[in-house]
């Protein structure tokens, strides 16, 4: 056992076995996956095209600080365009006179309603008159029905419909033109004299 050659060989074999064991452990004990890993590594060496296809997976894309999607702003842009929605809510309501507020809201309200109806298909969650007695079945989706009052025991429940709920059945908001910065929901306006 003093023979260095034997020691080297044994060490190499042990390392290989440990690596295989580690690989098997990483593969969660699935021999299939281990086999795939081995085949893949050989194929990467043999098949240049295959290697090139895999390369991007190993080169993490430069992580730009992700800009959030502008899509949620589309409805806001529509409401601002058609009824000055954003201007209204960002304005100081206490600084305006009651008459101005009333006049503006009376004008804005129907415009907003048209915009909402044009771009969203709205349905009640429970299509019954508010005040009606309704049944909440077993296995109901708690994200669509909120139980209030003396809640106890197991469904089905019977109760009074307090709010019909709103469900958006469809969204009809086209993407803005290619050249439009979606984060600008109201362009600045410059009047040329």
């Amino acid at each position, binding site marked *: 056992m003093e023979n260095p050659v034997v020691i080297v060989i044994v060490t190499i074999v042990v390392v290989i076995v440990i690596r295989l064991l580690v690989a098997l452990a990483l593969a969660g004990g699935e021999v299939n996956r281990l086999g795939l890993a081995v085949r893949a590594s050989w194929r990467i060496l043999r098949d240049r095209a295959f290697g090139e296809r895999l390369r991007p997976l190993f080169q993490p894309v430069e992580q730009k600080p992700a800009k959030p999607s502008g899509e949620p702003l589309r409805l806001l842009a529509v409401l601002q365009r058609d009824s000055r929605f954003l201007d209204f809510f960002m304005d100081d309501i206490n600084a305006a006179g009651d008459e101005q507020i009333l006049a503006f809201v009376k004008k804005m309200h129907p415009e907003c309603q048209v915009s909402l109806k044009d771009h969203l298909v709205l349905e009640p969650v429970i299509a019954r008159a508010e005040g009606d007695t309704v049944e909440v079945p077993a296995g109901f989706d708690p994200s669509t029905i909120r139980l209030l009052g003396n809640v106890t025991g197991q469904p089905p429940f019977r109760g009074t419909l307090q709010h019909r709920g709103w469900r958006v059945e469809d969204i009809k908001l*086209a993407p803005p033109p*290619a050249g439009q910065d979606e984060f600008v929901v109201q362009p600045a306006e410059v009047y040329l004299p």
Partner: protein
Amino acid sequence: MSASRYVVGIDLGTTNSALAYVDTGRGEDGALEGMNVPQVVHPGTVEDRVLLPSFSYLPGPNELPAGSLKLPWDAQRDYAVGEFARNHGSQVPTRLVSSAKSWLCHAGVDRRAPILPWKALEGGRKISPLQASTFYLEHLCRAWNYAVAKDVATNRLEQQDIILTVPASFDAVARELTVEAARAAGLEQVTLLEEPQAAFYAWIESGGEAWRKQVEVGDVVLVCDVGGGTTDLTLIAVSEEAGNLVLTRAAVGDHILLGGDNMDLALAHAVAQALAAKGTKLDAGQMLTLWHACRAAKEKLFSDTSAASAAVTLPGRGSRVLAGTIKSELTLSEVERVLVEGFFPDCPPDAVPKQQRAIGLQELGLLYASDPSVTRHLAYFLHRQAEVLAERSPPKRGKKKAAQPSAVLFNGGVFKAEPLRERVVGILNHWSKTAGGGSVKVLGGTDLDLAVARGAAYYGLVRRGKGVRIRGGTARSYYVGVETSLPAVPGSPPPIKALCVVPFGMEEGTEADLPDQEFGLVVGTPAEFRFLGSTVRRGDAVGTMVEDWEGEIDELSPMATTLDAPGREGNTVPVHLHSKVTEVGTLELWCLSRDGNQRWKLEFNVRESS
């Protein structure tokens, strides 16, 4: 040529255009339908609309985000037509082309020259009135090919029979230019139809055969068409031949630039004055918003009979929207005062529209009517056509002839307002009774926005033998100027006599020859004829020479030709005139050589008259 599957009516309006059609491929089921027109309504948003506003917006480079004006059939579009053009352009008048049709019949400008937008600044993009009309027709054509024809080549609009409407008051030159615009848009198979006639056809179509019970022999129907920008008046007479009702377009009025837009603007001014009295001054942008707000308020008041007033609110211009909000209101009584009394005042049957002749240099622009009173224009029209009215309406038993129309058909968005219809009917009744006639019948039941396009499509069917056709021919008599032999007076052109080349009511597809009057034309040099027209001289036959025509005959654009006879330059060739009204509805004048072997066509010279 076999008949096309679709018969299409196009209303190329001053402020709105529309298209209606019949699909004859569906047999008896082929009903009249309107085509929704996809158009840019906001930057980057294309939506269908019933009407195509006749406005073009010509943006500069990089003025709008890329892709803003994209259409499903044209991703590279660099101008806008329709709703966005109108709305955005109202705030950028230097880029907006509007009322192209009124410019098309303006004899004072070169209608093939890039002069629009009229308010464009030096160096701005400009197009000609002809080009603008082409834009609208082209848009309708591409929209059709996209939405209706899809991929079927034979269904493309270029392949269909098209009836294109023009104001009855359009003269031969404006009609010719309209056909030219259609050709430039790729539409070759067009036939012209007068708009009030189209409205009348729409009325016939709307009731099936019921119309035969609503009018009777001896009726003269006034078609009163007040659109967004123009007022167009026509008389259609009902007579009888071999037991059948016969309709004849008996007279048309002059071109009056007065319409619904003027009325809404008048309301805006009334509100602005009330605000100014309270110390609130409006800027130009707010004035435009007010104009639109007043239109909406008027529509609300006229449609909701219980409302006594409607709010007119102008939000602040900047982001501080509340503090800048201006509130006002329009009451029903104020709307009635401004519109009914302002535009439809009571007046006697012999009223004459006020003529304001500007002293000195008049700013060149559209020749808006100087009298805003529709009723005075109406009185003047009926008065000028009194002869026609008298001869058309036979005396009823025991009653004397009433030289007034016996029925009225309204057309144009303005008449959605019941009080305005009532006022016109009231005045017509009054005039009729004064003249010894009875009450005026009101013919109704048409869609005031779409009647012209629908009636035009229906006329397409009439041309194929289905239904009754309104007779009429040319709405004017036409003349060429012949110089008198009087000595010229320095500073004033020698007076001319008017030689009738086309009599009033000359039918489409007919020709006339004037062999007795010869002209000597010099080969190789341009020859120009002064060209004139009249809506009131209906007795002149071909060849009639009118010496004293002032007030009855108006001068139109001259017609010119160059005789090309190689090798004979400088020679004088005796020619005589030959006139022709084409099936399309345009007018052609030819110079024929004495032996009839050579002919030269005269073309309208629409350049600015010097």
